């Protein structure tokens, strides 16, 4: 059975706890010879390295488990961004209606210059 992130965390805790116990032992035994002290201290450092190693394994395992939910959240974000673009188009729709009114008024009054200007405004709104 493959190890889970929680398994790796449990190992990391055990090695971290071992390192802490070694420091307490060192502090409580000031008469240790330099040779013994260095041997024990190397064990402490190895325990800390193992703890770090298992912490990184826990992180890698957690990130692996997150792949699918993160992808789904990302898809939902994209969908919301599309919805936002749609909402922005609402403003454009009103601008189009307004430009349409200008054109209608110009046509009703029969002024060719105004019709040209109104068509220009409408095209402008549509192309922006």
């Amino acid at each position, binding site marked *: 059975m493959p190890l889970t992130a929680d398994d790796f965390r449990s190992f990391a805790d055990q090695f971290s706890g071992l390192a802490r116990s070694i420091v307490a032992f060192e502090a409580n035994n000031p008469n240790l010879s330099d040779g013994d002290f260095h041997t024990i201290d190397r064990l402490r450092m190895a325990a800390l390295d193992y703890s770090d190693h298992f912490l990184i394994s826990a992180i890698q395992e957690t990130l692996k488990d997150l792949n699918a939910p993160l992808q789904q959240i*990302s898809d*939902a*974000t994209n969908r*919301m961004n599309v919805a936002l673009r749609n*909402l922005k188009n609402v403003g454009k729709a009103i601008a189009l209606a307004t430009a349409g009114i200008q054109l209608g008024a110009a046509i009703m009054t029969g002024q060719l210059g105004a019709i040209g200007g109104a068509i220009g405004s409408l095209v402008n709104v549509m192309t922006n």
Partner: protein
Amino acid sequence: MKVSAKTTRPILVCRGGTPALSTSSKLLLSILVIALFALSACLDFGPVREYAALSRQASAGYSGIVEDMYQSCLRSAEYDPPSNGDTPETHCAQWKAVQPGLLHAESTLQDYLVALGKLAGDDKVSYDKNVDALKKECESLTVSGKPVFDSTQVDAVAGLAGFLLKAATDGYRRRELDRAITAQNDNLKMVTGALKGIVGHDYETRLENEEIAVEAFQVRLQRAPEQSLAVEIGRREARRRLLDIETKKEAAGSYIKTLDLIAKGHQELFEHKKDMGSKAVAKLLWDNTSEMVPLIHSMHKAF
């Protein structure tokens, strides 16, 4: 070529050329507009927006934590130089290697919260500008020098356009928010739970390991044959480092609490998705977001 009013009528959104409304119709229209505006005013996505903005700010503190995981390893290596001849950077390379994945997880959450906040954003002001432009066009619309609409009709048309716009866009926003919140609630719980594990356990244990390295250094100082000035400076430096570690642990604790609040706020939105703009939900979210503010400050102080 002169185009008759009849052929142009479909272009006119304001239905130019229609006869003036009767007094009773005007009254009815006015009441309708006021009632519809009153109804539409009840829907306020402000708290949803605020929740999303604060959640995003809180999640921004995470990048400091991710960087500090690597930095913590480097600081440990100052006390415990690698015995195999590696440089501290090589020794800590794995902490550096997990950074992109950790940041990606958080940025996905952040992007989601940004989109949620924007979708709940109040764009009424910009719509109002558009409606005002429409109103002005209706006011200036004349046929044979006479205005097509009287001022009551113009107000009614603009009012209705504004209401319909808000109703339509609010309905659309609500539907899209509802869809996202419903579909992503479990995923959000999973991601915040995973980030809690990484920060609450893995980062805190890394800090714990750094603390052990500093404490081991303190023991070595105690064993030093001569208690020189250099040893005293070393002791003070070690105490300062231990205090820094405590501050960082507190910041990690604050981040854990904000992750809980992010998940709780999303859960509240999920449970109240049908009345998302209501005052009751606003109150729940305000309580939630106000709890986040001091936590965010605490994180900013540490990193």
